[in-house]
């Protein structure tokens, strides 16, 4: 599979770098807003992605990396909110698997936060910074050369009998 060549830092405009950096901070803002209702912040994040789609692959890569890494964190957080409410409602215990989950979610948020800050700083410098898994996924998504659909060989046909 082939990929588009990557631009070097001096080939990227400052405005583009700033937009790429903005993606990470945008995700923070929506993540904080949408904590109780994660659907909202995912919608906001996806809208941000589509708004910035035309700003080139560099911005797209960082936006997508940020969006992808936000999805599991958001799901984990909403899982925690639901679990906590259920525990309170049923007077269940707050240890065992709940405690482990709490620690895991806290770790995930911390890791996400740190990587996003680093990602934002790197983006501002016009540098590609790949998160584990999400970085490759975003790169694959944005820089993969998709086979062009050849319009000329396409011909309309009536529906099958």
């Amino acid at each position, binding site marked *: *599979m082939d990929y588009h060549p990557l631009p070097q830092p001096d080939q990227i405009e400052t405005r583009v770098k700033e937009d790429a950096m903005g993606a990470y901070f945008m995700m923070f803002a929506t993540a904080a807003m949408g904590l109780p209702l994660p659907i909202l912040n995912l919608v906001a994040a996806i809208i941000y992605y589509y708004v910035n789609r035309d700003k080139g692959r560099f911005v797209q890569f960082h936006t997508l990396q940020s969006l992808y890494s936000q999805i599991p964190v958001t799901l984990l957080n909403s899982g925690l909110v639901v679990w906590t409410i259920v525990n309170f409602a049923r*007077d269940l*215990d*707050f*240890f*065992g*698997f709940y*405690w*482990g*989950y*709490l*620690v*895991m979610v806290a*770790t*995930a948020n911390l890791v996400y936060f740190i990587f996003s800050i680093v990602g934002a700083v790197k983006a501002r410098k016009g540098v590609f910074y790949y998160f*584990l*898994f999400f970085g*490759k*996924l975003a790169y*694959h998504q944005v820089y993969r050369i998709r086979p062009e659909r050849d319009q000329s060989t396409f011909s309309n046909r009536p529906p099958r009998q």
Partner: protein
Amino acid sequence: MQRTILRDLLVLLGVFGLIWLVFSLFSYPEDPQLISIHKEEKLGEVYVDLILLNPVFGEFDNSRVDSAVRVIADRLEEGLEDSEYNYHFVVFDSEMINAFTVPGGNILISTGLLAFCDTPEELAAVIAHEMGHVEERHVVSRLIKELGIEILTSGDQYVIGEVSELLTSTSFDRKQEEEADLFAAKLLETASIEPRSLATLFRKLGRRWTMN
């Protein structure tokens, strides 16, 4: 590329799955907040009944003494601002000068202690001190520390027996005693009971007995 993406995903899932598992199984926090007051009260009921089954701690059925305790306790409870506990007092028949707290706001007082107190203020001081242990959640902390939270809430018969034993034998640590004393001093003041009675009582006790 797709293969390395998949490998990364597995690494990520593995690491976070492991964190979840490890912290679920091997690291029980000792925070008493992890047991709700409601749960503590349910635990307490079982323990009180069990402790009173022990012939050493026969429940003392004397309504006059009981109501005297109740009057003092009511006054102290008025001084407590928004306590989440419903206090329950039991006087048990024993020569020993003894008072202890059982989870869920249950305070057990021996007839020996009642006889030992010269004034109602002194009894108030004892009760205020025990209320300190309750409000600061020392009882639950101690049990979690001794048994682990999982075992404590298991409801196992053997464990319940063990807990009753612990409640009536081991004592709180020095810091907890100081906290309970501080709490008692404040509470006595709020309830306009001479806080000096606490000091008097402990001086007397120091000569006679050590108290939980």
